[in-house]
Structures are given as C-alpha cells and as structure tokens.
C-alpha cells in the first residue's frame, strides 16, 4: 500500500522533472546562441562552426534534448560551455555549502518564527502581540538584499564580530542564516498564530479546559501539536526551495552555493550549467514534497495516503 504510493509518486516526480527540463531547455535555446554567449564577437565564423559541431549544436533540438536526458540518467550532466568543467562536479562541489545554509536558514526561521507565533497567539490582542506583528511585517517588507548588506556592514565590517562574507569559518554561517531567518520568520509566526487561534477557539479545547486541564497543558499538549501541521508543510517546501539555492543571500555574503552558480550560469547563458542547477533545484523540491506527504499521516492519524 505504502510502497505503491511511493512508486506512483516517484513516477510522477520523473514526469515533473522532464517537464521542467524541457521548458528550461527550450527557453535557454530560444534566448541564446551558446557560441556567441561564450565567445562574443571575437571568434571567426569558421571556428564558430567547428565548435558548434563539437558541442553537437547542429543537431535538431529534440535530438539534443534526448541526448541530454540519456546522459543525465547515467549521471553525466554535460560540461559547462564556459569553463568546460563537468556540471555535476561543479554542483557537487558547492552542494555542502548550500545544504548547510538551507538547514541553518530554516532553523533560524523556525527559531524566530515559532516563538513569535506562540506569543502572539497566547497573548493575543496585547501590546506584545502587536509589537511582534509589527516586527514580523517589517521583516517581510524589507528587501532581503538590503537586510543582508546592513547586517554585513554593521556586524562584520564595523563591529568585526563575524567574518566579512565567504564560507571559510564556522561563524560565517550565522549572518546569512539570520538574514534568511528574519525574512521568512513572519510566515511561520503568522501562520502559527492563526492556526493556534483556530485551535484555541475549537470545541475540544473548551472541553479540555472545562475538564480542568491547565492552560499551559492545553496549549502544549493539544493546541500546539495540531497547529504545527501546516508549519511542517511550509518548512518542508521551504527546505526544498532553499536547497535549490538562496540566491540573494549567497550573493551578498559571497556564499559559495548553488544559487550563485545558477546566477552565473544564467548570466553567461551557459546552458548545461543552467539545466544542471534547475534540475537539482527541481529535484529537491519534489523530494521534499514527497517527504512531507509521507510525514503527514504520522503527524495526523486522520490522514490516509491514497
């Protein structure tokens, strides 16, 4: 039963990835001519033809795409047009940095967002609630890039508490994670607050209170556990998205992750690298999505996988 579900989902996943790569492939080839993108106008037309032939660019697009898929399933994502280094190798080199930043960023979001949401729900209507709503709204409105630069300038350059970008030291991760956390915490805070208010006003809570259960036990044992379900969903999707690269934060902090690799690839119209980074990003999102769906019945016994 479970196995069949998983296999069906994996098959669906495969088709999603095919769809994503086809769209990326078509768009990239419509928008750019790889030879001009790499060499500009400094290369003679005859040499242009030689290189085109070497890269297999004279074949019709469906053939090129088919060749790409055939090699990709064997683990060969091609070579960058610009550096000629293998795409998979480039991505794997930076994956650990991206995983670290994604995990740290998500943790920061939850560490800031969840307590904020609980406080806002439990002490709803109070001054504290309104303050937290204001702060979280500011966190949402201020551009990530700006927040990152300000944190970098104040805490790394002026106060010298942290290294000035890069990912060489253990403390390098704190400011980037904090930047992500401040930007995304508001979703969790608000979502949790709304969910908790819904649960607090529901029948079973009133029943528990009337049975004499203390306020704190009601909140922690019942309300919170139910309110956390949507949080898990969001967190999973967030993680999936982050693993595809947190572009703005990576740019500000010179964090050597997939986001920066993807942006460089797009800027250079380096098609194999674009395809590779998009494929990896999409794969992470669908995998995380699958995990959440598998996790849900564990969290909420009312749910059955179909």
């Amino acid at each position, binding site marked *: 039963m479970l196995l069949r579900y998983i296999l069906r989902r994996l098959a669906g996943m495969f088709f999603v990835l095919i769809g994503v790569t086809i769209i990326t492939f078509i768009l990239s080839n419509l928008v*750019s001519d790889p030879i001009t993108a790499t060499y500009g*106008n400094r290369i003679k037309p005859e*040499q242009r033809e*030689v290189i085109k032939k070497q890269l297999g660019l004279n074949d019709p697009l469906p053939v090129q795409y088919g060749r790409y898929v055939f090699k990709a399933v064997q683990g060969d994502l091609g070579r960058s047009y610009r*550096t000629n280094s293998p795409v998979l190798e480039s991505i794997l080199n930076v994956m650990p940095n991206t995983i670290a930043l994604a995990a740290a960023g998500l943790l920061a979001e939850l560490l800031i967002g969840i307590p904020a949401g609980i406080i806002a729900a439990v002490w709803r209507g109070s001054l504290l609630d309104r303050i937290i709503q204001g702060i979280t709204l500011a966190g949402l409105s201020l551009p990530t890039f700006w927040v990152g630069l300000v944190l970098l300038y104040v805490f790394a350059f002026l106060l010298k508490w942290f290294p000035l970008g890069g990912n060489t030291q253990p403390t390098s991760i704190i400011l980037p994670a904090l930047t992500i956390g401040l930007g995304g915490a508001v979703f969790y805070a608000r979502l949790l607050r709304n969910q908790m208010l819904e649960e607090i006003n529901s029948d079973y809570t009133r029943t528990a209170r009337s049975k004499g259960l203390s306020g704190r036990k009601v909140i922690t044992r019942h309300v919170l556990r139910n309110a956390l379900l949507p949080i898990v969903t969001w967190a999973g999707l967030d993680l999936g*998205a982050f693993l595809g690269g947190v572009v703005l934060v990576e740019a500000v902090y010179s964090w050597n992750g997939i986001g920066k690799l993807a942006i460089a690839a797009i*800027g250079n119209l380096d098609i194999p690298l674009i395809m590779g980074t998009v494929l990896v990003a999409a794969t992470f999102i669908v995998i995380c999505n699958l995990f959440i769906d598998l996790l849900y019945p564990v969290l*909420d016994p009312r749910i059955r996988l179909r």
Partner: protein
Amino acid sequence: MINNGKKFRKYFSLAFLVALLGGLVLTACGDNTATTAATTTAAATTTAASATTTSAATTAAATTAATTAATTAATTTAAVAMTIAPAATTAPAATGVKPVAGGTLNVAYKSNFDSTDPVVGYSVQTWNVEHQIYTGLLTYDKVTTLIPELAEAMPTVSADGKVFTFKLRKGLKFSNGSPLTAADFKYSWERIFDPAMKSPFPAFFQIIQGAKEYGDSLNAGDGKVKEITGLKAVDDVTLQVTLTDADQTFLNIITMPEGAAVPKAEVEKHWDSDHKNNDFYKTAVGTGPFMVKEWAEGKGITLVKNPNYLHASEGLPYLDSIFFQVGIDETTAILKVKNGDIDLTGDNIPAAEYPNLLSDATFSKQTKTEGVVADSYVFMNNEMKPFDDVKVRQAFSYIFDRKKVLRLINNRGVETGNILPPQMPGYSKELASTSLHFDKKKAKDLLTAANFDFGQTLTFVSDDTDDSKKIVTSLIADLKDVGIKAEPKVEQSEAFFKDTGKEKNIQIGIINWYQDFPDPSDFIAPILSCGSAIEGGANSAWYCNKDVDALELKARGITDPKARLLAYQEIEKKIMDEQPWVPLYNPVATLFVGQKVQGYTFHPVWGPEYSQLFKTK
C-alpha cells in the same frame, strides 16, 4: 479541508517550481555588471610609464592628466621601437622599498574563471592568471616591446620575412621538473587546432604554413594531415617556423598565453574516456613564475612559487603564493581590502565607489587608475542610410560631447578621436590633434550641406550595461541639440553582438574593442577591414575599403619597425578620413590596492605584475 489540501499541495509545488524558475531568470536579468573590463575580451593594458610605481594622483582630473602626459612620453619611445632589444630581465620595483620575500597575496574576483588551459581561456580575468602560470618564447618588457623569454635571443628571420628560427635557452624545465624542448612548442601550438579543445584561436595561427590544412584535416576526421608542416623542431633547442606570408604580427601572437609551452606528457594524461574533453586546466603545468596548487570550482585558484621559474635565481617571484578568490561581489571586495582580508581587487571598482575613494585622503593613494588599450566608440553602419554618405559621417564627428560622457561615467576614461589607443605602438599625436573635435554649429552646417533628412528618426543601439545606457542617453541629447531625432534601443549583450554582425541591421550604436595584442593591426584587420565585414564578424561599421586592405596587407610584412608603424599611421589616417566611427574614449581599469602591497606595477598587456609584488608584514 485536509483532502483538498493534498491537491492544493500538488498544484502549489508546480506553481512554486515555475515561480522559482521565473525568479531565477528575473534576478539574472537584473544583474548588470557594468565593468567594461569584464566582458569576454582579451588582455587589458595600461599607461606605459607605469614603470614609475608612484601612488595614484589624488583627484580624478589629475589622474587623467597624468595618464595622458605619461602616455605621450611612452608613445614616442614605443613608436620608435618595436625594437628588438637584447634580453632584459624584469628588474625589481623602483620604489625604494627593498623587496621582502614570502607571504600570500589575496585577490578578489566576482566571476568564475574560464578554463585556464592556454588554448581555451579568452577573457581578461583568465589571461591575468594564465600569465602567472605560463610563459612562451618571447615576452614584453615593461611596455610593449618584445624581448626574449624562453628563447635565448630574438629569432633570426629569413630575407623574405617568412622563416623564423628560435633558439631555446639550455636547461629549461617545466614547473613539474620535466625538461622543455622545442618539440613541446610544436605540440602546444598544434593542439590549438584539435577540434576537441574547442579553441577560439586557430585563426591566429593559420599564418603558419600547413596549419590550415592540419586544422581542416582534424575537423574532417580523415587523418590525412598528421602535423603542421611549417612547424619544425629541428633539435631540442631549435624551433623553425615557416609562415605563408611575411607577417610581423606573428611574434605578438605567440607571446599571447595561447602561444605558451605546455608539457605533452602531462596534457595527454587528462583526456576523458572518449577523448572529447581534456582537464589539463586543473593542473596547468607551465613555465611561469607560479604554478597551480589548487583549482577549486567556485572558490578560486591558489598558485604557489614555481622553483623552476626562469628568473628564480633573481629571487622572483617574491610572493610565496597567490589566492585568486572568486564569488566576491565588487562592493564587498572594497570593504575587504579596507579591512585587510583582500590585498588587491581583480574587478574594476564599482562606478559609484570610485569617486568616493578618490576623495578620501588615505584611500585615494590606494586607488589605481590605469589606461586600458581599448576603444569605446560610436559606429555608423556604412551600408545603411543615412551613414552610407561619408559627408553625413563626417558631420556626426562634430556632434558628440565627450567630456559630458566621461563625467557621466565618473571619469573612468580618456577622450579620444583616434582609432589606436595611446599605449598602442603607432599612436599618432598628429591625428589626435585633428580628430578630436566638438562643434555643434559646424555639424549642423555640414549636415545641411549633405542634404541630411532631419525628418527621419535614428535607432541608437547599445548593450545593457549601466555605462552604455547612460552614454546613449547623453549622445541622443547631443543629437537633439542639432535637430536630429533618435531613439535608444538596449539589447542584452549576446543579442547585441549577434545583431552588430548582421548586415544592414543596426544603423548606429556604441561598442567597445579591446586589444588582443599590442600591435596596430589588431585594431584594423578584425574590425575595419573588408575581410571582417561579414556575417558574424566584428566590423560593426561594415566599413570596407579595398585600398586600405591592400595597404594593411603590405604593412603586415614590413620588417623595419619604424617604417611599419609609419605605414599603420597612414592607414589610420586614411580610415579616419572616411570616418566610419566617432571614437569617444579609451576606458581605464580601476583597482583598489591594500596598504601592505608593495612594488605594484600595471602592465599594458598583462595587468598587475604579480611576480614583482611583495607584501610588508
């Protein structure tokens, strides 16, 4: 609620994917690297007189004045001598501070490097690093005069100017200890034609007899031609090259990184299983002052001292190692130099930061402004109305306010009316005095005399860098002042290159050209000859004059340096009489140098001379 949630999640993930893609594309489109030096072009250059390692002037104006003064001085020497000087080894920096051996230099770049395989890498950034790893038969002295490096003397040339014989020094070794012989040069140049290398350089080397046939045979895969017949390793120390024509630019071409020697045994180890790709760039064994210790994708390249460097006995290089870091944003790089994490910026200083640094008493001394051997110019399509009329083009040369343009780009350039930049051998001061003019009234008179149709609207095209957009706005305002209507059209740089290479496509626009090597032919043949006025070529003005082509062909073969440069000055004057362009300015490179760095010099071809640098503690 929960059941609907599942469907919602499915559609949500799909929507999220599309949004992520869209977000990636949009963010990338906003990425304007305004640094002109960061385009896919060849070596950057500088003021020739930067042999004097004085700190930069305190104001931008003073710097520009100093640059122009210095270049005119250097030009006289350079113009007289593409001289064949005896082997002059690079002397220590003339600052008065005694060089200190040791230390690591940290350099910051934003973009990743291209492949550092010399037959592949083709950008300013990559060449600056390649020059530290590889050297060739010849090199340049402090300016643009060729001197022997791995060769023990300049080559002997046959009477017809076609056969060059080089004698290598004895006992040469690669950084991995293996001996270097003439056969290594033959191998290194032949691999340029290997289609698997996807090298952009074969056209440069087709001047060697038999090279074209060799390349064609490899491309066809028929195995008919096994070697370049005009390239002979007579013995271990003698290399004989026979050209198809007497062409003096050949010596410059082999001095570029692609002419460097690489060890065959090492290169052959790095082929992949189906012999389609070669990863030699990762170990990059050469004969330069440094060698590669680590090539970390996305992190950077670490170089260490090469114990087998030709000039190691003179104590060069002073530094133990250099770490070229990538992925560092240009603004962050400035902060990092200020706090000592980085010693030298690789990319240009951001346009907005440049005047700020110059106005600070301390930082202005660390801000270097170096002339670049390049042109930024307005091109007019000689095949399209109204610019098919030379009178209209001549009128246009009076319209544009260069000083206003330079102010808009924070004085990161020097105005010019010539084709050849000041540091280029053959630069003509005489032409400069007559070509640099700005007179709106005269322009109007000339346009009226040419029966210019003031009712038409021109389309003024440029790429999408910040500088280009600002400049076009200024130029269109100048056009309006003389009653000409024009609309701007901004294109993404790759689309822009393609469109300039299409006949009868772009009427008028602005573009840059950076030198490949310091020889005047490099600014004529690729961009102002009939041979380059072809689909996909770089002759954006589609200028073609058969007489000029014939003169240029003759000039290539003149062996007397003085006579040759005079010939090119004639050619330049002939072209400018027909005004295919309105040259605007020569760009500058701007660097921010850390306080601990000593012995800084900037070479017209190679950029910062890292082998001469040292650090104080």
